[in-house]
């Protein structure tokens, strides 16, 4: 299909424009994948080039270096140490000593066991002194995997430091050759408050992220390829698990008609997760905007009071409000009691359960709990949107409305032609993040329903899958349940990542804010 530019596009009528955009969206998909592929290829190309340059530089430095620099290749910090930069030299040397010490005594054996994740399980040994059997623990797969990942991190850190040491040796050799001043330890320290200030500020946060986010994520990705199962692991340390390749992914993707296992559960939950994220995001968005417009309308008094009443929901911790609201809507809670007493619902009707009355169609029965959580989520979400929308509505230039009025636009037209496009443009990125946030909205679902009512179509999977379960609550229930199938939880976590990154990529490509940044400026 040809691409229209300018006037050609404007000549089309509404329907043709829609058709045009629609087809182009789907025609564009291969291009995105091509671009992603190109970007990945480009990344590796750049990476390879960088490695090549580093190696060339290493060889050059060795060739041109004096003996002090050359010794630095084996004894780290040597070049600095013997040119008067004692502080740096000692730090390098100490790091090398620490690394070698760790690797020889622990790291080496951990990495050596990584291939099998341990072979000797616990065994019972007869103790002649006390005349009983005692359990002797040998290999512990969890520890082997954890410490080998840590050791790999350490090795990467060591390679980086080693390279840094050679660079430093080269620089100080050059400076000494030219008779220039070498920085002293004191000056080095001072530069951490000035030229190197970013290193000082970033040190703690990045180390924290590396140890408490990156390392666990790598570990859990590896777990997805094992059969690590918490149920066998009573008392933390007697269990062996091993690599199983792609088996766990096969379990999820091996879909059969009428199956009730993981693949059925995953399909059901993924569909509901996306449905939930869509409705939760947009219902809050439009209703919140509406409330903001109402409160900000001229002539409405007590604006602060209305706003404060809504904001109370943000202030009060969610676990209180959500737990309480869930009890209000529960089987003998206030709301249901009132509705039953008023004769508005039948006796079999419940908010968080399936209607047992056989005359009610099944899909209606399923929709009730789902609709309930979406509605309660509106109660939670409107205040945030109200605050955000209030801030943005203030920024819409008043003359836009003025000229629209002169042209005779009704308030509905003003809303659809000015307010809404402006809001959508400005809050595009926010909508995306809130969509993703809702996909992972653990609190609302878990505290309200805990995933209930149970879904018999997914009874074969562990974690007692329910109709309101999101992927994230399912993941939690799997890890805390009786079986604790950590490997399945990891697989689901990885798939959540894949789904979210695909959605982000697609939406990001569609968003006007990223394309025509200057439209509303």
């Amino acid at each position, binding site marked *: 299909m040809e691409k229209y530019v300018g006037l050609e596009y404007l000549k089309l009528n509404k329907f043709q424009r829609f058709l045009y955009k629609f087809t182009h969206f789907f025609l564009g998909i291969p291009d995105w994948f091509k671009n992603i592929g190109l970007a990945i290829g480009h990344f590796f190309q750049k990476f390879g080039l960088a490695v090549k340059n580093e190696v060339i530089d290493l060889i050059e430095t060795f060739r041109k270096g004096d003996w002090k620099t050359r010794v630095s290749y084996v004894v780290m910090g040597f070049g600095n140490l013997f040119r008067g930069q004692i502080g740096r030299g000692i730090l390098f040397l100490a790091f090398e000593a620490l690394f070698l010490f760790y690797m020889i005594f622990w790291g080496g054996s951990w990495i050596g066991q990584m291939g099998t994740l341990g072979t000797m399980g616990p065994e019972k040994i007869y103790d002649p002194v006390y005349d009983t059997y005692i359990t002797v623990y040998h290999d512990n797969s969890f520890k082997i995997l*954890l410490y080998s990942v840590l050791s790999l991190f350490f090795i990467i850190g060591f390679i980086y430091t080693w390279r840094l040491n050679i660079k430093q040796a080269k620089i100080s050799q050059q400076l000494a050759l030219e008779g220039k001043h070498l920085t002293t330890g004191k000056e080095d320290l001072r530069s951490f*408050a*000035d030229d190197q*200030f*970013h290193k*000082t*500020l*970033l040190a*703690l*946060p*990045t180390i*924290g*992220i590396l140890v*408490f*986010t990156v390392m*666990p*994520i790598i570990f859990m990705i590896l777990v997805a390829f094992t059969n690590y199962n918490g149920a066998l692991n009573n008392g*933390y340390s007697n269990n062996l698990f091993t690599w199983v390749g792609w088996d766990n992914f096969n379990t999820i993707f091996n879909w059969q008609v009428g199956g009730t296992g993981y693949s059925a559960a995953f399909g059901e939950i993924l569909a509901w997760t996306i449905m939930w994220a869509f409705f939760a995001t947009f219902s809050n968005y439009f209703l919140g905007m509406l409330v903001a*417009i*109402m409160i*900000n*309308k001229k002539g409405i008094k007590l604006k602060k009071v*209305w706003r*404060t*009443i809504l904001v*109370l929901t943000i*202030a*009060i*911790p969610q*676990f*209180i*409000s959500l737990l*309480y609201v869930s*009890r*209000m809507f529960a089987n*003998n*809670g*206030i709301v249901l*009691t*009132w509705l039953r007493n008023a004769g508005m619902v039948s006796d079999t009707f419940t908010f968080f359960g399936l209607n047992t009355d056989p005359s009610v169609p099944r899909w209606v029965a399923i929709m009730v709990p789902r609709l309930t959580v979406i509605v309660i989520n509106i*109660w939670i979400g409107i205040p*945030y949107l109200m*605050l*955000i929308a*209030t*801030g*943005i*509505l*203030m920024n*819409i230039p008043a003359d836009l*409305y003025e000229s629209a009025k002169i042209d005779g636009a009704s308030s509905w037209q003003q809303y659809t032609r000015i307010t809404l496009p402006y809001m959508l443009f400005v*809050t595009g990125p926010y909508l995306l993040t809130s969509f993703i946030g809702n996909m*992972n909205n*653990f*609190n609302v679902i878990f*505290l309200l329903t805990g995933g209930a009512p149970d879904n018999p179509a997914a009874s074969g999977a562990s974690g007692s899958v329910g109709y309101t379960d999101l992927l994230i609550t399912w993941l939690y229930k799997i*890890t805390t349940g009786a079986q604790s199938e950590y490997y399945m*939880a990891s697989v689901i*976590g990885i798939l959540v*990542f894949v789904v979210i990154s695909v959605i982000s990529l697609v939406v990001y490509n569609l968003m006007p804010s990223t394309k025509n940044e200057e439209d509303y400026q």
Partner: protein
Amino acid sequence: MNPEKEAVVVAETQADPIVLPPRRHVGMRTKNRIGNTLIYILLILMSIVWLFPFVCIILQSFRIESTMMTGYIIPKEWGFDNYVNLFTTTNFPRWLLNTLIISLATAVLQSVMILCMSYTLSRLRFNGRTFLMRFMLVLGMFPGMLTMIILYRVLADMNMTQQNSIPGLILVYVASSGMGYYISKGFFDTIPKSLDEAARVDGATRAQVLFKVILPLSKPIVIYTILTAFMGPWGDFVFAAYVAFNNREGMNVAVGLQSMINTPSGINANYTMFCAGGVVVAIPITLLFLFLQKYYVEGVTGGAVKG
């Protein structure tokens, strides 16, 4: 530009209308009046819906004739029994203390982490800056719950779970918090670069620029960061439940109160006590929040606009 002043201006302009004054003729005015009346009715209805659960929770916390869930709201007998029982017969004081310690420590440490990260990414230029930002964006797409399993094991190894959960929880809340830098980075981005440059020309080091020039201007975002960092652990449920692992000494209020009513028999025995606990927990945090509302609104609004 003075952000403090700006904050005041933002707060004041919010009271202003966006809809222009109608032209002066009678039909328009009556139409407007009907519209406003409708809006008032809607707002009052909304306020009732929004306040209803909170009013209920307060009323039921004073009920003494029955500890179960009931189909009515207004107690038949009033009294402070639930509050007294809460503090004398349960571990609630311990939970409250746990939560307070965790929240205070987290508020301080997490704010330091977030402000360090966001300031650096916003105002300093160095190699690997964009890489770091992209890396954190991708990391953020992994569900955080995935890391819980291993963190629990590691904390258990260091004996920081169950009854010793306080240091463990603080560590977990603080360690990766640098990833939540977006909103405060957006704030730092708005401070004119010329301020830094002027100070640098006058011979200030980068550290001095931060402490003597930027930080005094950043009161709103510092308060916002501390407020959200304090409120996070105050209401956190998932990880606290994981780390406490059913140990009644190591729970925070969220986990403790939930454990009171997570079984049918628990609901029957503790429902009004749970309400009392909810009131005790909610009052200080609500007051604090309403007191600092201005800064919160600014943070939320700015963060959403800048994306």
